């Protein structure tokens, strides 16, 4: 509704209205979001001198801006971003590579499902963070244990979403395909796989969010580089502004990677595009 209205207004304005209004209407939602963030920042900045208890120990936005300017010029920060991103890519991809085929096999083969499902249901409730110590012991390097924790965070979601997607394929599609002469391979390739794809994509999007949670937790405990490690180091040397910059950086990275996965999801399921 809102979008339609905006379009109508834009159409009316474009013939007569001023360029400023035109720009506002075209980028209306973006400007509104920007204004909100700006207002919140200003409120934070000016509320600090009022002595509101919670805000006393937190650095003001202006300090954060200065700190981020410094941090953005330091190679340490970029190295940390790079390392965390690599771990995310590795853990996330591994989870897809293992989780999706395993989900397929479990959902289509009763024997494998019966043997694997109890194991999965026993291990799944253990929070990935609880795996950190054992993972440090088990894997030769810290790098591998961090990637393993990221992998674990994504894996269960990928697995369950794949099983869910595969086992809820509408009977009407498999029946139609069967009548038309499909063999097992055709069924898998042309019917079950695409039918399960929306659910798999949902699993990808959710698991990407979890991946960032896990990489930060693992780096805080077991890391020697990365954004989580940098955040914890900043805290230990009492550089609170830097802590906040790291937090925002992680938030932004999580937002961007989720957006990228959503984009990938749209490419994988072009038929479910809404206009």
């Amino acid at each position: 509704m809102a979008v339609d209205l905006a379009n109508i207004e834009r159409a009316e304005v474009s013939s007569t209205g001023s360029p400023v209004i035109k720009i506002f209407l075209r980028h209306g939602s973006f400007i509104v979001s920007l204004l909100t963030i700006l207002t919140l920042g200003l409120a934070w900045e000016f509320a600090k001198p009022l002595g509101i208890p919670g805000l006393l120990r937190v650095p003001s936005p202006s300090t954060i801006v200065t700190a981020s300017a410094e941090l953005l010029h330091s190679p340490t920060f970029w190295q940390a971003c790079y390392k965390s991103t690599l771990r995310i890519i590795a853990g996330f991809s591994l989870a897809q590579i293992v989780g999706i085929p395993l989900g397929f096999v479990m959902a289509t083969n009763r024997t494998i499902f019966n043997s694997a499902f109890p194991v999965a249901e026993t291990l799944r409730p253990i929070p990935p963070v609880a795996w950190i110590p054992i993972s440090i012991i088990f894997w030769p390097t810290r790098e591998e244990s961090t990637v393993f924790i990221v992998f674990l965070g994504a894996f269960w979601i990928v697995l369950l979403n794949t099983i869910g997607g595969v086992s809820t394929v509408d009977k009407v599609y498999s029946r139609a395909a069967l009548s038309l002469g499909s063999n097992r391979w055709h069924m898998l390739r042309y019917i079950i796989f695409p039918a399960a794809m929306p659910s798999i994509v949902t699993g990808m999007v959710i698991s990407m969010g979890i991946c960032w949670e896990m990489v930060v937790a693992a780096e805080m405990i077991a890391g020697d580089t990365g954004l989580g490690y940098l955040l914890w180091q900043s805290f230990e040397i009492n550089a609170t502004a830097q802590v906040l910059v790291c937090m925002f950086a992680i938030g932004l990275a999580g937002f961007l990677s989720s957006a990228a996965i959503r984009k990938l999801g749209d490419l994988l399921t072009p038929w479910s595009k809404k206009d």
Partner: protein
Amino acid sequence: MMSDLTFAQHKHGAGEIIVEDISYSIRDRSGRLVELIARCSFRAERGLFTAVVGPSGCGKTTIMNMIAGYHAPDQGKIFLDGVQVKGASWERLMVFQETALFPWMTTLENVVYGPMVRAEKPLPQIRQEAAALLQKFGLAEFKDRYPNELSGGMQRRGELARVLINDPLVLLMDEPFRGLDSMTRQLMQQYLVSLFEEARTTTLFVTSEIDEAIFLADRLVILSGSPATVASVIEVPLPRPRTLDMLSTPDYAHAKTEALEILYAEAVAAFAGGGVVSDLKESFEKIYAS
């Protein structure tokens, strides 16, 4: 026009379904056996359009699923041209209740799918035939669209095309026009009639709409309540090609009355069985006795 397309070429001598004394039961939630279909026998003669009519929920879909080969009857047999039906086959293709076009394939890909997986011909040739068929079905412009970008009527035509490109011996249709608005539904009925009259593919069509059944079919198989049995078989005395003005002829009215009387007797029996007050029964009588 049809002769350049594969699906009109065989026939006249192929495609007769005989349903022989079939019964089918399912278990309800408490594990009790409930008989859905009891000793049903009827036939869909080659080159004829047979409509299976009955109240909704009477097991029509179950019968169609057995003919398509999705499950086997508990008792009795189903034959296609004298050979017992076992499992699904492209010789008996179904147009489903709601659209069963694969949502992840374009209209063209959907139509190409059957011949493609059976690999009877080279793919470019299949594509060409599919495109020609879509042209005939008025979907040429929409061949690269996904099903959810098509209207209800277009989806139905797309599904017909996907089925007919395989040149099935029998066309099974399970309330295919349900859910369409009445205008589109009528257009689809006329479209189906002209398709049938051109190709004469043996067709078995399930519906709960008596008008639809009479307009389309040569023969009505009327099913009774639960468990479903064949209550009567009525020949529709209307000539072909069928036109809409036949809906106002005495022959049409006669066929409709005959069918309704049987269905009405069933409805009353069902009401009486349910112990519903006799007022309702009387009002039914008033409506249908005239």
